[in-house]
């Protein structure tokens, strides 16, 4: 754990290193930047480690649309320590171990007060602004004074970042920080999807399309609930060996199904279809397969993957009418400040396996290697340490 004295920088900009994305799809550049002090309701945090999530990859490559802006600091899965707090910040103090979370939880709006959803009507619609409460105002400048844009209200590919309190969770300092970082996005999304969104029960059958970190986390969540059969579907057979650690009981490689559709294979394996299916890739056609893989009368499909080309989803009316159910979910239906501490607790009690998600560890400066590993499908979660 870091024990730098923070008091010297309070109220002043901090000069530190960040990995900047200056052009879509090009290698990130490690540069010196300035990070302004936190405004009211904001917290400046020192990042301890950060991991790469597929969503970072998607937006790194994207060069059109409202969310595409450069130069920018990507990264949204991380763990840090509070360096200083802005006015009106309650519940956080210097030295607290915190997780920044891309999905907002303002605690005050109708949705945040309801147990039925993790939507936040106050903030969730806006995923484009740089800062939550200050629109396009940014806390980052490069060494020439040019504004650098934020990403998903986190921007963790930097030694320091500024995060709104609606996007921050205080956690126990007992959990090893690299495991904690995983809970700030991917793993929580998957487990939450199984537990909260689908509410997988003991003895259920489950199909997971896409065995990246989110898909494997869904399996972990389903395993902990006592699912009887967890089928993993992926075109990369390397994922199968890894998947066994997460509770998968069966695997299907769509490229080896011949004329049959994956959904047909799933239905054969389960005598009619699974109780729950999860789409963890981001392809409308795969979502439809996931949808018809479920059992009529009770089947529930959860969409977790972000459609890569914004392609529309097309579902058969008859397939829906036969008692099926489909919904999408961000962050696995979790309310960050309430649910992440519960997951941390499960890990500390040795009930939740987080260790198996980490396949690589690198120094922050080698971030581009981490991008390459993920693109090539060779890594699950690569932890980037700021100080090692």
């Amino acid at each position, binding site marked *: 754990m870091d024990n730098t004295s923070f008091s010297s920088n309070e109220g002043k900009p901090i000069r530190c290193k960040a990995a900047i994305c200056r052009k879509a799809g090009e290698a990130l550049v490690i540069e010196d930047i300035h990070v302004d002090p936190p405004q009211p309701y904001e917290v400046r945090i020192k990042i301890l480690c950060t991991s790469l999530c597929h969503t970072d990859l998607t937006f790194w490559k994207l060069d059109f649309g409202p969310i595409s802006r450069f130069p920018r600091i990507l990264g949204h899965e991380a763990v840090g320590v509070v360096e200083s707090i802005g006015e009106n910040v309650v519940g956080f103090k210097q030295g607290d171990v915190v997780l920044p979370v891309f999905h907002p939880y303002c605690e005050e709006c109708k949705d945040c007060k309801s147990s039925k959803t993790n939507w936040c009507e106050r903030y969730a619609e806006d995923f484009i602004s740089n800062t939550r409460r200050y629109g396009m105002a940014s806390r980052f400048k490069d060494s020439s004074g040019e504004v650098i844009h934020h990403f998903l209200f986190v921007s963790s590919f930097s030694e320091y970042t500024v995060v709104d309190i609606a996007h921050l969770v205080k956690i126990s300092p007992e959990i090893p920080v690299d495991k904690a970082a995983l809970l700030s996005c991917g793993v929580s999304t998957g487990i939450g999807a199984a537990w909260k969104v689908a509410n997988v029960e003991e003895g259920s059958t489950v199909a997971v399309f896409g065995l990246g970190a989110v898909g494997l986390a869904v399996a972990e969540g389903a395993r902990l609930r006592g699912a009887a059969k967890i089928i993993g579907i992926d075109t990369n057979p390397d994922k199968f060996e890894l998947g066994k650690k997460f509770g998968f009981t069966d695997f299907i490689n769509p490229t080896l199904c011949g004329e049959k559709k994956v959904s047909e294979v799933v239905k054969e394996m389960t005598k009619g279809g699974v109780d729950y299916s999860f789409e963890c890739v981001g392809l409308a056609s795969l979502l439809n397969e996931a949808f018809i893989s479920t059992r009529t009368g009770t089947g529930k499909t959860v969409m977790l993957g972000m459609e890569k080309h*914004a392609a529309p989803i097309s579902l058969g009316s008859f397939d829906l009418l036969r*008692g099926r159910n489909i919904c999408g979910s961000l962050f696995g239906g979790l309310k960050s400040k309430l649910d992440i501490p519960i997951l941390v607790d499960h890990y500390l009690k040795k009930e939740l396996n987080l260790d198996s998600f980490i396949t690589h560890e690198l120094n922050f400066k080698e971030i581009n290697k981490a991008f390459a590993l993920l693109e090539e499908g060779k890594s699950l979660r690569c932890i980037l340490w700021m100080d090692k």
Partner: protein
Amino acid sequence: MENGNSSGDNKSSRKPIRCKAAVSRKAGEPLVMEEIMVAPPQPYEVRIRIICTALCHSDVTFWKLQVPPACFPRILGHEAIGVVESVGENVKEVVEGDTVLPTFMPDCGECVDCKSQKSNLCSKFPFKVSPWMPRYENSSRFTDLNGQTLFHFLNVSSFSEYTVLDVANIVKIDSSIPPSRACLLSCGVSTGVGAAWETAKVEQGSTVVIFGLGSIGLAVAEGARLCGASRIIGVDINPAKFQVGQNFGITEFVNSMTCEKKSVSEVINEMTGGGADYCFECVGSSSLVQEAYACCRQGWGKTITLGVDKPGSQICLDSFDVLHHGKILMGSLFGGLKAKTHIPLLLKRYLSNELELDKFVTHEMKFEEINDAFQLLLEGKCIRCVLWMG
């Protein structure tokens, strides 16, 4: 023509019955009232004498349709009430003289789905619009007087003085309930009330929107009313439905033809401050399902589809919308109800004056006037038209 088939059973009537039926011989053409032969029940089947039957839009759909699964000549009708005339072997559930509701949705009670609390889709007799009896391959109990096979419809075929049903498609009920009210629970009212109560689980104080104020939509309103919904917004293109709808608990009405430059979903989003808790599509149009989805509330909004669209129709949704907003899209057949479990419960609620059925019956006619009933329904001039057998 007799082919008495006594197989050691001590029931008296094991011969074909000659009776009147309204036969649909050609798509979209008036039904022909003719004499037909109804064969005796096979094992696990019962033959019933229909007391009365009501016309449902699904009958109209398959009457008009010129491609499979439409087929001709066929005996349509699936919402009815009858009395058991004879039973086949192995039938333990009912005896001659029992009053039963035929139900198009099978409930075999034995398969893993019928045994599950969560599903109402029997896997022993998977739901499909079949020309035949469910248990025996390519088997019909009807022939016309020329010996030509007549096709069944939805396991019921109630536009006939007598019909044959599988035990999976009957529910025994109390004979004291007025038949013209009880028959409604064999399809339409159960579907709508069930959708609100069982599929959607509408809560007290909810805001509900119903697209399509036919019998199903009005039954959804009745169900939502029983569940304590505080606002029930009805959407239809026929302004006359609003007057009717008020009797069913509809609090506000939107005429989708007169929304000017706005889409219905925009109007509803404005009226509800961001969308309804529950939206029901009761017409059978994928584009309307999309409209309904667009005005159900982000976070916890549920859109439920009940209407049957053309085979192969697709519902198209924006992937960003689906992923981000957390809305749920669901479909159900027969309101998610298990016939043998839930119909008796609905009848109880009728008898205790909670569930109102009288207001659904707008016309009562003689069976021979069936083509007039079709016209009334096509012109949107009736809710339920009950046809009494002679």
